[in-house]
C-alpha cells in the first residue's frame, strides 16, 4: 500500500517535472485552458454580482400604501401595526396627511398654492419595506395583494415590472452560462486530449519499451493522466487569476455607477465555494480529457 502511494506520488511529481521541461508549450496549453475556464467563471461573477445588486435595489423598492380619504389617523396606525406583524415585512413608516402636506410644501415650492387650499387633499400613507429574502417579484405581488384587500386601503403602488424583467434576463443569462460552460468544458477536454495525444506520439518508443517489460495499459496511462490533472490545475489557477484581474479592473467604475444610483454596491470576486468548484472542474476535465485520449491511443501502440 505504501509502495503504491509512493509510486503514484512519484508519477504525479514526475509528470509535473516532465511538463516543466517544456515550459513554453506547457504554459501556452495551460493558458488556453485557463481562458476557457475563465469565461464561465466570469459569467458566474456577473450573475452573482447582479443578484447581490438587485437584492440591494429590491430593498429600495418600498411599497406606497394610500388610505381612502376619510380614514382616521388611529385606523392608519392600526393597519401599520398589523403589517409590522407580518414576517415578510421589515419596516412600516406612517406618513400622516399633515406630515405629507408639510413635506410637500417644503419640497415642491408650491407653498402659496397650497396655502390657498381649504383642506388637506392628501391621504394618510404607509411606506412598507419588505424583508430582503421576500424581495422577489412574486412575494411582492402577494404582499401588495394582501394590503389591497384591506377595507381602508385605496391604492398600493408597486413597480414590479422591472424586477420581473431583470429576473427574466438573469434566468436567460444563467441558462446561457450553463450552455457556455458545457461547450467550454468540451473545449478544455479537447485541448487536453489533443496535447496528451501529441505527447503519446512523442513518447512512442518509451511506451513500447514499457509494454515490452510488462507494463500494463493502466501503468502506461498513469503519467499521462497526471499530466492532464496538472493541466487542469494550472488552467484553473490561471482562470482564477483572470477573474481576479477582471474584478480588480471593474471595481472602481462599478462602485462609481452604484454610487450614482445611490447604492453602496461593491463588485465581489469569486467566493471560496466557486473557487473550489473551478479547481475541481479543472482537475476533472483535465483527467477526463487525458483519459479518453490515452485510452484511445495507447491501445494502438503495441511493440512489434
Amino acid at each position, binding site marked *: 500500500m505504501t509502495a*503504491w502511494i509512493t509510486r503514484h506520488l512519484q508519477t504525479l511529481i514526475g509528470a509535473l517535472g516532465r511538463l516543466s521541461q517544456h515550459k513554453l508549450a506547457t504554459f501556452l496549453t495551460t493558458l488556453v485552458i485557463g481562458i476557457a475556464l475563465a469565461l464561465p467563471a466570469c459569467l458566474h461573477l456577473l450573475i452573482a454580482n447582479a443578484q447581490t445588486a438587485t437584492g440591494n435595489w429590491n430593498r429600495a423598492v418600498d411599497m406606497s400604501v394610500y388610505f381612502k380619504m376619510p380614514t382616521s389617523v388611529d385606523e392608519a396606525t392600526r393597519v401599520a401595526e398589523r403589517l409590522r406583524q407580518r414576517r415578510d415585512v421589515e419596516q412600516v413608516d406612517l406618513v400622516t396627511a399633515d406630515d405629507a402636506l408639510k413635506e410637500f410644501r417644503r419640497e415642491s415650492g408650491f407653498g402659496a398654492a397650497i396655502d390657498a387650499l381649504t383642506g388637506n387633499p392628501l391621504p394618510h400613507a404607509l411606506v412598507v419595506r419588505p424583508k430582503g429574502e421576500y424581495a422577489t417579484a412574486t412575494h411582492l405581488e402577494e404582499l401588495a395583494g394582501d394590503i389591497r384587500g384591506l377595507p381602508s386601503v385605496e391604492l398600493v403602488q408597486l413597480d414590479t415590472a422591472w424586477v420581473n424583467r431583470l429576473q427574466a434576463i438573469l434566468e436567460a443569462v444563467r441558462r446561457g452560462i450553463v450552455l457556455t460552460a458545457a461547450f467550454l468544458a468540451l473545449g478544455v477536454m479537447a485541448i487536453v486530449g489533443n496535447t496528451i495525444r501529441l505527447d503519446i506520439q512523442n513518447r512512442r518508443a518509451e511506451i*513500447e*519499451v514499457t*509494454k515490452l*517489460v*510488462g507494463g500494463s495499459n493502466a*501503468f502506461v496511462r498513469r503519467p499521462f493522466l497526471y499530466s492532464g490533472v496538472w493541466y487542469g490545475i494550472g488552467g484553473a489557477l490561471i482562470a482564477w487569476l483572470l477573474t481576479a484581474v477582471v474584478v480588480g479592473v471593474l471595481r472602481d467604475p462599478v462602485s462609481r455607477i452604484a454610487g450614482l444610483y445611490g447604492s453602496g454596491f461593491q463588485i465581489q470576486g469569486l467566493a471560496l465555494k466557486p473557487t473550489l468548484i473551478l479547481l475541481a472542474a479543472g482537475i476533472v476535465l483535465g483527467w477526463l480529457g487525458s483519459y479518453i485520449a490515452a485510452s484511445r491511443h495507447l491501445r494502438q501502440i503495441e511493440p512489434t
Partner: protein
Amino acid sequence: MIRFDHVFKRYPNGREALSDLSLELAAGEIAFLTGHSGAGKSSLLKLIALIERPTRGQLIVNGQNVAGVSRAKVPAFRRQIGIVFQDHKLLPDRTIFDNVALPLIIAGVGTKEIGKRVRAALDQVGLLGREQSQPLELSTGEQQRVGIARAVVSKPALLIADEPTGNLDPDLSVEVMNIFRRFNEVGVTVLIASHDVLLLERFPVRRILLEAGRIVEAGSGATAAEPALKLLDPSKLVGLEG
C-alpha cells in the same frame, strides 16, 4: 520451460515465418538459436514474448499455453520473462538506475527493495556505481549490459535475447555471453538468438539451427552444455567487475 508443438506463424502479408516447428527447451537450459536473417529467429522469440501469436499449433511457456493468455493478461505474462534486445531499448531520458528499476516499478515492488535489487543487478553486469549516469554517456557494450540488468532485475526464470551481441565487437560479445552464462548457472533458462559465428564457436552450448522457418538441427542440451561449463574463464568474469 518452452515447448513448441507444430507451430506455424504466418504474417498478414502471407509470409510464412515459422512452419511446423516443434522444439523443447528444458528449465535451466541455455541454447543458441541460429540461422540466417529471415530464418525465423526473431519470429520465434516474438512468439515466446507474446509480441506475436502462433497462427497454428501450441506453444507453452513456463507452464502456460499462450493461447489462453488474454490481451489483458499479456503484461503479467511478460513480467515472468526477461528480454534483451539488440538495440537494448533503454529510455534515453532516464538514469541507468531508473531504466533498470522499470520492471520492478511496474511490478509494484517497494522503494527500498528496488534500490537493493537494482544495485544487485548492476553488480552482476559489472556496472555498479553507474546508477546515476545517462544511457548515452555509456559505451555500446555498457548499454547492452544495462539492458541485461533490466531483463534480469525481476529474477525471471526465462531470459531471451535477440542478437544481444549484434552491435558489439568480439571482446564485448564474449563479456556479454559470460554474463548470460552466469545467469544460466544459477538456474535461469536462457535462449539467445544469434548468428555471430565466432561466438558460437567459443561457447559450444546447445544450438538450434533454423532455416526458412523450420528446425534443421535441434541440438541436444545435455552433452553440449557440459564441456561449455569448463570453457568459462573465471579471470574474464573478474575482469568484468572492474
